[in-house]
């Protein structure tokens, strides 16, 4: 299960690339472009997310990070180009992808009328696993407090506790997972993601902060902004 001692992170990247398309490149975007309200957010975006690696999507506010993520999870079909999951193209591969997806978005999917324990139970966790996960995110003692009485950061931790449940899905797509977390929380989350990568999982995340995990590739959406968008905005329509 754990990667062989002979493979440094770099070689494991190469090897898993050879191993494609079965396991190597989990998620791949080819010449992807998205527009919103007539404005092209990014165009010609290419990336590859092999097993055991992480990808950080960067970009200024409004650069299209969340739109990219919503496109990748299949919430919107308004895009051009190809998205491939294990070598098969969307939308055919969408349900296969979703069966291995753990997505935590901007709205984290924590029900405020439920306690942290009940929230995790809603996500199908057994009681002792949920307890251990809440302990790991530092919510020991808050298991049965209603989430509406917890702070924003604590609610974020409830959502992130899903990552600590045993047998979490292979592909993690996390929109701003570090937002509203304190220093200790960020470190704990990073070590959790490192463990996930070592087990052969993949992580795609957006963040404005540097993320201390390896191997980490970066995509900056500013590099894929079309030049003519200004002209279009001014003279188009």
């Amino acid at each position, binding site marked *: *299960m754990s*990667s*062989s001692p*002979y*493979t440094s992170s770099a*070689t*494991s990247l190469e*090897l*898993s690339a*050879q*191993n494609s398309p*079965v*396991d190597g490149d989990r998620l791949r975007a080819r010449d992807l472009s998205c527009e919103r309200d007539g404005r092209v957010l990014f165009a010609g975006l290419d990336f590859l997310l092999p*097993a055991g690696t992480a990808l950080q999507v960067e970009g200024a506010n409004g650069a299209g990070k969340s739109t990219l993520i919503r496109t990748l*999870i*299949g*919430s*919107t*079909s*308004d895009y051009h180009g190809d998205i491939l999951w294990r070598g098969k193209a969307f939308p055919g591969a969408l*349900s296969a992808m*979703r*069966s*291995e*997806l*753990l*997505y935590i*978005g*901007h*709205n*984290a*999917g*924590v*029900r*405020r*009328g*439920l306690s942290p324990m*009940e929230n995790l*139970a*809603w*996500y*199908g*966790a057994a009681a002792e696993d949920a307890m251990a996960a809440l302990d790991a995110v530092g919510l020991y003692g808050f298991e049965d407090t*209603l989430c509406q009485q917890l702070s924003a950061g604590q609610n974020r931790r409830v959502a992130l506790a*899903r990552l600590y*449940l*045993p*047998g*979490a*899905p*292979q592909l993690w797509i996390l929109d701003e997972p570090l937002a509203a977390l304190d220093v200790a929380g960020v470190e704990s989350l990073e070590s959790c993601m490192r463990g996930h990568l070592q087990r*052969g999982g993949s992580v795609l995340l957006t963040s404005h902060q540097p993320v201390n995990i390896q191997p980490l590739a970066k995509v900056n959406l500013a590099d894929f902004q079309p030049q003519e968008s200004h002209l279009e905005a001014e003279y188009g329509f």
Partner: protein
Amino acid sequence: MGSEAVGVSLSKKAQSDEARGVALDAYARVPGFYTLFRTELVLAARRRSDIVNPLLFFVTVLAMMPLGIGPEPEMLSRMAPGLIWVMALLATLLSQESLFRGDYEDGSLEQLALQPQPLYFPVLAKVLVHWLVTGVPLALLSPLLGMMLNLGAEGYWPLFVSLVLGTASLSLIGAVGAALTVALRRPGLLLALIIMPLYVPVLIFGTGTVQAALDGYSFGPQLAVLGAILAVAAALAPLASAGAIRISLEN
């Protein structure tokens, strides 16, 4: 151990990944109908105002009616079936707007939509709970209000049964409108405009049931039509709601 061995270990890893992917289905995902239903029931029990407000509206407005239109017993008893039914309809409508809103805002609706299984059952669970906490109490209260409005005693039973069947249809139909308007910040009258026309058949056959009983006729046919509307709504409305939710989530 050369790169070959590493390659083997990697392909083994690939296999175990696949195996884990299958075993995973039980884990960290949204559970079955019973758990969804129980969660909704727990949530409803914690937001008591959502249960009490429609009932309070129902009772208060109907208590005002004799004051507004005069206390003549014959007029009140003639208007009672229609008044009770219209108020039940409005009370259901009022409580319907928030049906999916909370889940939409906290992102759990999106999590549900990402599951490989259809949205039909989560929607059905929500509607069922909505009916249990608004429609059933309305129906239970209706004989009391019938008494206040001088409804003939032979109308109590048909009123109760028609309200039980009818409010279930109203909850189901209203869910479609609630799903369509969930992404709007202030749906206001839009929800009413969308679903009021669909409420009309339920209203007609609901009041028709009670009226037939008061006039001494058999009310079985009207109840049968209400039952048929409920059967169609139960089959189709969650499907339509699920589609509407997916559309709402796309934007």
